[in-house]
């Protein structure tokens, strides 16, 4: 094997431009595949981190009637905060949130919103809830940048909020936008109005009640609470996993095309090599190689393209990939329209596993593609090969 590698290396380097053209094409595949996979990993990481920071924390208890996809459930999705969680809530480890439906009237237009009551001193979400303690005549409210953009709202804007309390009585009050945050998480921003939990409980006539109870990362293996459904972080980020999986499947087609182009070049080179180097093949056999060993030599030679490509990829690909990890890739379209946690600029994340698996897959594919045409050697007559006669 060592000898085959040595000879293959000499042969490849000796082949000059033909080798380097193949190597460059293959190295391009390496870099693009690693970059795209890095983008997907980066997106996965960013989406989950953003969801953790802005929407789901380390997991949640949902009031048993609560279904975020069905607004009609909001009417009954509230219950007294369980007493056993009170110490954790007081310590800031659990954040209760009351979610009800309401309507705002920005610039005279009517817009349905979810009103979310949250404790201003909470630390689990990055939402600037401390601003909800602002003393104003109107009720202080915080909204996300996506909603602000869609509803053309800005800090200091005053608007009317209408809601229906626990007794089904409609009521209205003025709210003032005290802060606008940007999160990359549409579910935390679009049609969401945040206000102080106490205030909302008072408005809704639901003292000490909540819809969700979000806990931080610290405690795992949480117990079930009667009347509440435990939603772990994994369950809440399942949608992201599925989306990434779907996107990855689409990417696989692109990878396959890239690899196919590179492999065509390798296959072509191998076929041409075997066609042109019949005398050399005969010579190897005359000097003491078995035909199987010559097949091995040609396979190693073809496979070595992938090894050289990995080295070349490191030379120009590593600076590119590191630069990308630093500056990110800004999407040409508005990411907020995608309906899921996605930053406008994605920062690729490369793991050792990602790089290693890409190198292994490409190298193995190259080995197979190199081997296929080399099998012809096993059927060659060495005496004909020595004369360079086409077989």
């Amino acid at each position, binding site marked *: 094997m060592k*000898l085959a590698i*040595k*000879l293959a290396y*000499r*042969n490849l*380097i*000796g*082949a000059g431009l033909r080798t380097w053209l193949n190597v460059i094409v293959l190295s391009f595949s390496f870099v693009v595949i690693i970059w795209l996979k890095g983008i997907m990993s980066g997106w996965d990481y960013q989406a989950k981190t953003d969801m953790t920071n802005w929407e789901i924390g380390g997991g949640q208890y949902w009031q048993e009637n609560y279904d975020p996809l069905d607004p009609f459930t909001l009417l009954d999705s509230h219950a007294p905060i369980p007493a056993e969680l009170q110490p954790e809530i007081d310590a800031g480890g659990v954040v209760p949130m009351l979610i009800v439906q309401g309507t705002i009237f920005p610039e005279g237009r009517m817009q349905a919103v979810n009103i979310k009551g949250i404790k201003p001193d909470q630390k689990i979400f990055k939402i600037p809830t401390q601003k909800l303690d602002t003393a104003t005549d109107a009720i202080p409210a915080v909204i996300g940048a996506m909603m602000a953009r869609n509803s053309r709202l800005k800090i200091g804007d005053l608007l009317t909020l209408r809601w229906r309390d626990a007794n089904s009585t409609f009521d209205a009050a003025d709210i003032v936008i005290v802060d606008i945050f940007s999160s990359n998480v549409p579910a935390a921003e679009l049609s969401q109005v945040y206000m102080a939990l106490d205030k909302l409980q008072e408005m809704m006539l639901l003292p000490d009640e909540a819809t969700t109870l979000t806990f931080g990362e610290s405690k795992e293996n949480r117990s079930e609470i009667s009347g509440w459904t435990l939603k772990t972080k994994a369950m809440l980020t399942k949608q992201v996993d599925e989306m990434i999986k779907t996107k990855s499947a689409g990417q696989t087609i692109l990878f396959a095309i890239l690899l196919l182009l590179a492999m065509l070049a390798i296959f072509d080179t191998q076929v041409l090599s075997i066609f042109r180097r019949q*005398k*050399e093949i*005969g*010579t190897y*056999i*005359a*000097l*003491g*190689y*078995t*035909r*199987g*060993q010559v097949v091995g030599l040609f396979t190693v030679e073809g496979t070595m393209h992938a090894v050289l490509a990995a080295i070349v990829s490191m030379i120009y690909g590593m600076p590119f990939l590191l630069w990308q990890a630093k500056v990110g890739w800004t999407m040409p379209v508005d990411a907020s329209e995608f309906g899921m946690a996605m930053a406008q600029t994605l920062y690729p994340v490369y793991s050792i596993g990602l790089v290693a698996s890409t190198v292994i897959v490409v190298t193995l594919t190259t080995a197979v593609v190199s081997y296929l045409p080399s099998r012809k050697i096993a059927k060659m007559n*060495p*005496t004909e090969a*020595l004369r*360079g006669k086409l077989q």
Partner: protein
Amino acid sequence: MENQSIITIEKLVKRFPMGKDSFTALKNINLKFGTGEFTGLIGPSGSGKTTLLNILGSLDVPTEGTVHVLGKSIGKLSTKEAAQLRKESLGFIFQSYNLLVVHTVFENVEFPLLLLKYSKSVRYKMVMDALEWVGLTEKVHSKPPQLSGGECQRVAIARAMVKKPSLVLADEPTANLDAVNSHHILKTMETLNRELNTTFIFATHDEKVISYLRRKIYLLDGRVDKDEIITPQKSVAQ
């Protein structure tokens, strides 16, 4: 020196399929070759000399009869055993040199030693010795395309001789060379034959080669037409 038999050929027949029929290239060949011979298989094109050389080199197998080379029955060797025989005991010299063009002179000559897994220092010494035998130590870093035909063939001789094989098979080694280079090459091989006691068997119809031979086996239409051993007196007379 030339009494110990290293090759025994008995009733050798070699046929090649030609469509539905077959072509008989070698017909009932019976020969023996001793250690240190400097022998030629002489004959026109199609007489079967290259076919016989290929069988002796375990690159081909007999259709009928037996061929023993260095105690091994060629027809009964597995592919691996045949390769082992070639690797350890045989050297080949070809008409068109068959050098590995992307490798240097050193690497070409080193190749058989790599197969035999000699250490680097031993390889270096053996390669340099072989290049000294053929007078090419100055071209050690050159590649075949940078060499003349004569130099290429000397590299091929060095490659065949570097492992000091028992038997060297040379197929028309001077066919692509001019007279001066041919004589130089033949003198080199003759010297190596005498100094290392290596058996040389040539397939040739080149008069220049024939004049150096100590045994001449004439082949005609696949049969041995004449087997002539040249005595020293006769050789001197030539």
